């Protein structure tokens, strides 16, 4: 049984123009507090999403193209922690407009029912499942949780954690394109420097021309990449550890081939 709860503390976003992102419990909060309190520690991801909203509103107080964040639970244990979750959300003053208390069996359905345009999770399997059903997903880098940052760093990386060709249907490609277009538009509202959003492209295997192609493809989808790294077979570990991305987008990458 899925229950959806609106967060009355937060102003609801415009249904047509907001970009709906669902974030899992594990992606929002860190592990349980040791003292057994019912307030969870906050991870880095959500504050950065909020910051983008804040900066967008600074530019234009009537801005509607904002992130509309839903918190979603993906297993029964989490589903049962609903009051602690709501409590912690209030405690940290998080800009979560709705809660979806679902389980491992029905969370994907919840995602679809809520018109989620991007699903952020720390769990590769969850991402795969969602992608199968046409919901673009991005992996939250667990290491980035503890790293302070002024910018939400989104990494486009081929063959990252999610198998690029698995689960890529026409439907999910379309959704991914839509989402990218929105993300690109949000980024365009800021200048080249001092943006709360940063797009990075990393290509591991191809040469400069593959990377250049990917840059141009992303551009044609409305995404203007800020940083680009063409590895050409060099080990990716050292580079990724320096980049400190928050979110890895690799599924919709099949969009960039051909």
């Amino acid at each position: 049984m899925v229950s959806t709860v609106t967060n009355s503390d937060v102003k609801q976003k415009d249904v047509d123009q907001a970009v709906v992102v669902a974030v899992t419990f594990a992606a929002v909060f860190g592990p349980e507090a040791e003292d057994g309190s019912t307030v969870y520690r906050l991870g880095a991801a959500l504050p950065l999403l909020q910051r983008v909203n804040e900066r967008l509103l600074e530019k234009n107080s009537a801005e509607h193209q904002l992130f509309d964040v839903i918190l979603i639970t993906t297993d029964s244990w989490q589903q049962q922690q609903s009051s602690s979750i709501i409590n912690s959300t209030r405690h940290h003053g998080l800009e979560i407009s709705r809660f979806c208390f679902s389980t491992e069996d029905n969370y994907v359905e919840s995602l679809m029912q809520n018109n989620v345009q991007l699903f952020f999770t720390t769990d590769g399997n969850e991402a795969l499942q969602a992608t199968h059903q046409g919901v673009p997903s991005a992996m939250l880098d667990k290491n980035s949780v503890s790293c302070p940052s002024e910018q939400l760093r989104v990494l486009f990386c081929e063959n990252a954690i999610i198998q690029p060709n698995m689960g890529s249907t026409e439907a999910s490609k379309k959704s991914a394109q839509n989402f990218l277009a929105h993300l690109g538009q949000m980024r365009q509202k800021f200048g080249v420097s001092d943006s709360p959003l940063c797009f990075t492209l990393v290509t591991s295997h191809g040469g400069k021309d593959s990377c250049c192609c990917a840059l141009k493809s992303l551009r044609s989808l409305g995404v203007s990449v800020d940083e680009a790294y063409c590895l050409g077979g060099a080990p990716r570990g050292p580079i990724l550890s320096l980049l400190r991305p928050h979110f890895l987008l690799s599924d919709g990458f099949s969009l960039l081939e051909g």
Partner: protein
Amino acid sequence: MSEIKPTEKTATEDNEAEQDWKAAKAFFDSLKTKVPRPPKPQNAVTIAVSSRTLFNMVAERKIFEDEGVEKYVAFQVEHENDPLKPGPAFPFVKALMNVNTRLRNLYPDSEELFDIVLMTNNHAQVGVRLINSINHYGLTIERFCMTGGKSPIGYLKAYMTNLYLSKNPEKVTEAIEEGIAAATMFMSKQESDLSDTQLRVAFDGDAVLFSDESEIIVKKHGLDTFFEHEKEFENKPLAQGPLKCFLEALGKLQRKFYAKNERLNCPIRTFLVTARSAASSGARVLKTLRSWGLEIDEALFLAGAPKGPLLQKIRPHIFFDDQMFHIEGANELGTISAHVPYGIGQKYNKGKLIETPEKKESGGIGEGSRARHEMD
């Protein structure tokens, strides 16, 4: 071939790296136009060049300085399909490519080659023009790093860089402090006819190949003391300087040609151009090189004579020196020079101690921090 040892890696990281390598190899092997694939970083001699050393971006830089970064990026994007003109490192890069061709002929399966990486803090959108320009000249540069305004220094290690060339002295100093051979490049004032069959690299001795220990003696105690000191310690090797490892890397590649009987036709030639004199202070230098197991093809002792005219005869693709006085002299007469900001020479100008004002507290937006953010 990098002296920089990779940090301890886990088994999975190693495995992933191997997979990445194999996939890249497969990709390049499958290309219809046979583009030489980039070598394995741990075996290659990696040269990182900034966009302003590879290409002439003087006009674009003016736009950046006068009108700011947004206009600069917009301009570059607008002119994306206009190839840039060659910069100071361009002849050097072409010479490196030539050596690679010769090496691939002799050793088709070896990964011990030069690997040229574009290392720039430009934004990726500007990068499209850079890649188009690279393609226009047919340069084999398959790896790059465009950091969108942030310092690229951290990435030098990640790409296992053996030599970093930039137009920005602050970045170069930072690289040297991190233990990476680096130099600030200067375009020469005249056109010069450089060899297209042989890479020619000239090095100053003290504070470039060797430490600045002897230069300190000259500056503090004068030439006579210096001569006595060098004679006395003739058999004690000097400590190494920031470019020693690069000379070593060149030597390793040279020996590959010697092994195939190509010594007389070797496409790499190295020169030592030092103000020391052969009689009094030269021996220590040669003995130090010998103790390191390094060869240098030609050692030229000037005994204080200006370097410019001699370099004009040598016509190197690049000349490394720690003193701006020599860099300027070389430039005037057509030699592409690269300043190594290392050692006591930085505190002096033409033999006189530079009076440096008290360093301002950081936090202000002054010339200093602006330079840090310039697009290189």
